Every structure is written in C-alpha cells, then in structure tokens.
C-alpha cells in the first residue's frame, strides 16, 4: 500500500465529489441521528455533566501549563516499571523508531489496535515498504485497510462504507471461505471478521496501540475501546508499542476518571466504553501473559508549536468525535473531503497546525459558524474562534482564492466608508424588494448562483436596518 498524501488543498474539489457520491451520501444519512441522539440522552442522564466538562477543561489547562514537568514524571515512572520511552520530534522520527523496534524484535507481522497517531505518521505504508506487515484489527480500520483508504471519522473510521460494500469486500478478501456462504445477516459478517482476525492476534510479533491518556503519576497508558481488539493486540504479541502524542498526559488516576466521565458520553453516548485499560510496563516476572517489552513513542509533530499561541486550547482535545457528529458540513461531505487524517471541526483547526496553513488553510472555511461543535465539546474547545484565527492567517498569507480576496476587498472598500455603504445597501435592498415583491423569494439571482442553486434567496425588507432605526 502507499501512504495517504494530504489532499486538503483541493478541498473544494473533494467536496464536489463527495456531494455527488451516492454511496457516501447514503452512508452519511444512516449515521446522522445515531450519535447526536445518544450523546443528548447521556448528557441528560448525568446532571453533573456540564460541571464535569468544566473540570476536564481546567485539568487539561493545568497540565498544558506544566507539560514539561508532567512529561518528565511520566517518563520516570515508565522507566521504573521496566518500559522504554522514545521521543519523536517529527512523523518521520516516529516511523523510524517503530521500525527499529520491529527490526530488533525480528518482527514480520504487526497487529494494530486503533491509533490515529499511526494514521498521522503514515506508519502502515512505512512498515510495508520495509517488509513488515501491518494488520489493522479494529473492525472499521480493518475494513478501510482492505479498501486502501484512510479513516473518515476518528472513532468510526468506516462510517462512509455501506453494508453491501462490506459484503463484497469480505467475499473478495476472505477467499479461503466458501464463495456461496450466506453473509446476508450482519452478525454473520461480524463473526467472519472475528474468526479471521482472532488467528492473526496469535501470529503477530508486535502489537501497536494508541493511547487515550498517559498518566504522569503512575506511568500508565490508557486505551478505551468497545471491541477488545486493542487489548488482544497488546496482550498476545511479545512486544507492545504505544503511540501517543505529548498532550495526552493527565496528572493522576483521579484526573483520568474525570476525562473518562465525559469521553464515552460525548463519543457514543455510553456511560463507559466496554474496555478501559490502564497498562504499566511489560509483564511482571510472575505473569503468565502480556508483552515482554513495553515501548512508548512520544510524538510532538508540531504540537509544541501550538503551546502559547491562540491554538493551545486545541491540545485539550480528547478525540471523542462529538464535534464532527454535530457538524452540518461534516455530515454533508463526510471525512475524506477534508483530505487528511483529522476531519470535521477539530480537523479544520488541527490540520493547518500540524501540516501547515498552505496545505490545510481551506479547511477552516468549511464552517457555517453555527457553533454546535463548541457547544458539545467535552473539553469546551472554542473551535469556531480558532477557525476564525486560521482564516485570518490564510488571508494574511495571501492563500485565499482570488475570488474571495477580491470580493472581500470590494466589500472592504464600502465597509470602510459608512455613508457610501449605507447608500449602496439601501439602494440594493430597495431594488431587490421591488423585484421580488409578491414572491417573497428568488429562485435565481445574478452573481448569487452558488446560493440559489441549492436554496431560494429571501427578498429583503425594502428598507435597511439603519434606515428603519433612524425613522423610529
């Protein structure tokens, strides 16, 4: 397989393709109500939910303010437990570290629990290029790996794939099974994937997982899953590698509980995900199972550059996916249109931070500023505000498309001259009101095709607000 190169630059082209993709639109429609309704129910069932969000925000702010000290304590604890800590400044460094560990272990196969950091650093392609087979075990990740795709959602990676597509995929991939088998029921499909992957857990030499949190006090890494694949991936192979970015640190066990209390409720509406696992070091001398080696790769990849800037708050993100579940733009175009690893509102802020505003600068424009993302974020991250900051930077760097630059300059000319602005808008309002009298709306307007193609343009009131205000 090849690495997924970012396509965020051609966001508009991606969107056009996504809107015309009937399979994708069908898949997106079927998910819409699920996540939103489940989160609302979970929130309503816990009166303390909003105050827990405040506590979670505060604990992460505290941690980020002292991240160096917590990282040092965390490292000390991991070493004390017999584990190894590797520091990676860039994606390339992280890839090299993981490959070196695999080579030292003589690994041919690596089993993977779900990790977004692995997607961020393009690990699978790198391992394959160097003769190490990487097998995704999260069911959704398994499906998209077979399709040669990147995830389209951070917690539901195959949300864009329909059931008939999975059926066809399994028939093609699991060619050792009878071709005429009945896969019409979903449980049969799940059982087939379970049986195929169960075997692979026992064959892998190395298991790679992500981390939802790293605990400074104890040196533990935490993973949260529903399938149990992350636990089989870390318990059966001889070597366990944890991929984590530096901002995943929380100070104490009690702090971890605060995050857990808002995480699953925001993500899937569960009170707790099925499996929450705290891992510390390799297996003990008396242990009959578990890995003999435990490695943590701590990735920076641009995050320290966000500290102390207007984007620092983004480092509070716990990757629950609530922002994209509630985003009208994400729901219309799906995750792939965003062109890199992190989609939706959190991706629109994170992508330009991590791979540059030149590549990701269009994404912050993919927002109606409706504010739902911020209103549901368990860490109270001001996503719309940060998207606005990116728009400013994109404009300052002359990266915005010519049409919007000239449009803004044209508008700016009038906006800087209030008398002229009022006269011009008054004239336009009168003209439009006269033209649209009786109908109340326009089905087509010159220069407004982008608007009227998908909805009517309402007829404005004959007088502007300022005119009406003066007449009072």
């Amino acid at each position, binding site marked *: 397989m090849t690495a997924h190169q970012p396509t965020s630059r051609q966001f508009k082209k991606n969107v056009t393709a996504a809107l015309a993709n009937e399979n994708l639109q069908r898949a997106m429609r*079927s*998910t819409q109500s*699920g996540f939103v309704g489940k989160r609302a129910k979970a929130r309503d069932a*816990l009166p303390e939910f909003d105050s*827990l969000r405040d506590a*979670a925000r*505060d*604990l992460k702010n*505290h941690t980020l*303010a002292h*991240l*160096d000290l917590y*990282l040092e304590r965390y490292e000390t604890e991991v070493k004390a437990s017999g584990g190894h800590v590797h520091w990676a*400044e860039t994606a390339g460094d992280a890839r090299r570290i993981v490959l070196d560990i695999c080579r030292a272990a003589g690994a041919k196969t690596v089993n993977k629990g779900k990790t977004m950091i692995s997607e961020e650093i393009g690990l699978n392609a790198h391992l394959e290029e160097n003769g190490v087979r990487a097998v995704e075990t999260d*069911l*959704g990740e398994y*499906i998209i790996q077979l399709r040669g795709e990147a995830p389209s959602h951070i917690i*539901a990676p*195959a949300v864009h794939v329909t*059931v008939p597509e*999975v059926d066809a995929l399994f028939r093609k991939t699991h060619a050792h099974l009878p071709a005429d088998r009945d896969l019409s029921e979903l449980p049969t*499909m*799940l059982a087939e994937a*379970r049986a195929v*992957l*169960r075997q692979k*857990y026992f064959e892998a030499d190395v298991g790679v997982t992500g981390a939802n949190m790293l605990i400074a006090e104890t040196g533990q890494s935490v993973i949260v899953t*529903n*399938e*149990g*694949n992350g*636990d*089989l991936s870390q318990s*059966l192979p001889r070597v366990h590698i944890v991929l984590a970015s*530096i901002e995943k640190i929380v*100070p*104490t*066990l*009690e*702090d971890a*509980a605060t995050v857990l*209390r808002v995480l699953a409720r925001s993500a899937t509406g569960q*009170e707790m*995900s*099925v*499996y*929450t*696992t*705290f*891992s*510390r070091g390799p*297996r*003990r001398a008396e*242990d*009959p*199972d*578990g890995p003999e080696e435990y490695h943590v790769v701590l990735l*920076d990849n641009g995050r*320290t*550059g966000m500290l102390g800037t207007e984007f620092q708050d983004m480092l509070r993100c716990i990757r629950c996916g609530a922002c994209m579940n509630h985003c009208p733009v994400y729901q219309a175009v799906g995750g792939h249109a965003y062109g890199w690893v992190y989609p939706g509102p959190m991706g629109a802020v994170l992508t330009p931070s991590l791979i540059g505003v030149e590549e990701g600068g269009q994404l912050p424009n993919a927002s109606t500023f409706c504010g739902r993302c911020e209103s549901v974020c368990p860490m109270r991250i001001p996503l719309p505000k940060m998207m606005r900051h990116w728009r400013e930077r994109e404009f300052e760097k002359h990266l915005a498309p010519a049409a919007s630059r000239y449009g803004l300059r044209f508008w700016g000319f009038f906006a800087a001259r209030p008398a002229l602005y009022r006269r011009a808008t008054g004239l336009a309002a009168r003209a439009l009101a006269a033209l649209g009298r009786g109908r109340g709306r326009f089905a087509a307007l010159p220069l407004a095709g982008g608007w009227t193609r998908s909805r009517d343009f309402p007829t404005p009131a004959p007088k502007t607000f300022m005119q009406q205000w003066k007449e009072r």
Partner: protein
Amino acid sequence: MSAREAILARVRKAAGGAEGREAAVAARLAGNGPHAPRPAQARSEGAARLELFEAKARAADATVARIATVADLPAALAAELRARNLPATVRTGADPLFVGLDWGAVERTEGVGRLEEPATLSRAEFGLAETGTLALASGPMNPVTLTFLGETHFVALPTADVMAGFEDFWAAWRARGLDPRTLNFVTGPSRSADIGQTLQLGAHGPVALHIFLIG
C-alpha cells in the same frame, strides 16, 4: 540536542519562567489538586449500591446473578453453562477464590487464554456501581487473556468489593497496593457498530459477560 531535550525545551519556553510551577505539580501529584464534582450516581450506599451496580451492568448488556457464598459458585456456573449450551469446562487463573472449591461436574483448567476458549472465569478486584463496571487486575491469579479470549466471560465479584464510583474505587485500589501490568475496566460484553452503523455484541472480545455477585 536530543529529541527529548528539544521537545522539553520548547515546552519550557512556552510555559515561561513562572514561579512555583514545581510546587503546583507536586501538590497535584500528591492528590492535593482541585476535586472534580462527584456525580450523585457515584455516591450510592448499601443495598441501593448493589441494585445500581446490577442495573447499570444490565444496561450495558451484561447478565448478573446473586449467589449467597463462594461455595455456591461451581453449581451456579454449571447451571449457567448448561443453560447456554456450553461444554462443562471453564478456564481460570490461580485465584485463591477458585482453587479451594469443589468444582464437581465442571472441568476447571488453569492457564492463559487460548485460540478457542468457550468459557473463561475471572475474579474482579472491584466493581463500580456508577456504571456497572468491573475492575480486573492482570497476573497469575487472573490472566488478562482470559478477559478477552473467552467466548463467554464469567466474572466473580464479592459484594464487599462493589464501590460506589471512581472516587472510593481509586482510594480502595491504592489501599490494596496492587501493581498489575494491566488494570482492566470492563463494562458489558464487547461490541462494534462498524458494519452498517448497527451495534452488534461480540466483536473481538466476549460475546457474553455474566457476573456472579457473591454475598
């Protein structure tokens, strides 16, 4: 400069030279940081606590049975295996709770989880009533692979070990002085909604989770 030093130097620069940072961090790590609000559902007591634990575990698709003493465990397990059409065998660790019992018709083998494992039995260190969650400590007493490879996972939990929520749980956990390779919180059997966004039980871990509450 090593990657470690470079990363830490950038973090330090952003943090600035504010006074008292070390003291603030030490206080938090010593448990003297601010306390997050404790939800009402994490404050249950007595019989209500056990009822809440059961209700929450069932809401997460686990099944729960109460038995009076640990001596009743073999017969209760045998009945469950029969009712579920499973062979009369179970895989466990070396937990003292299991070792001294007369298992009668149930063939109990000790060891780690294997590729095919119809039924496994573990003892949980604690339960958390607020979410119906089990807390298991890995090790020779309860190998971690039994928690994930059993097609049906049975878990024994003395009622005295059911905590109200995370607050009293962490205190009890620290007091017991355990340091396992993994602490596994388990809330219901494994599941996935990755095919067609339809939730199904039994992804990679157990298809069913049955809890014996003892006492």
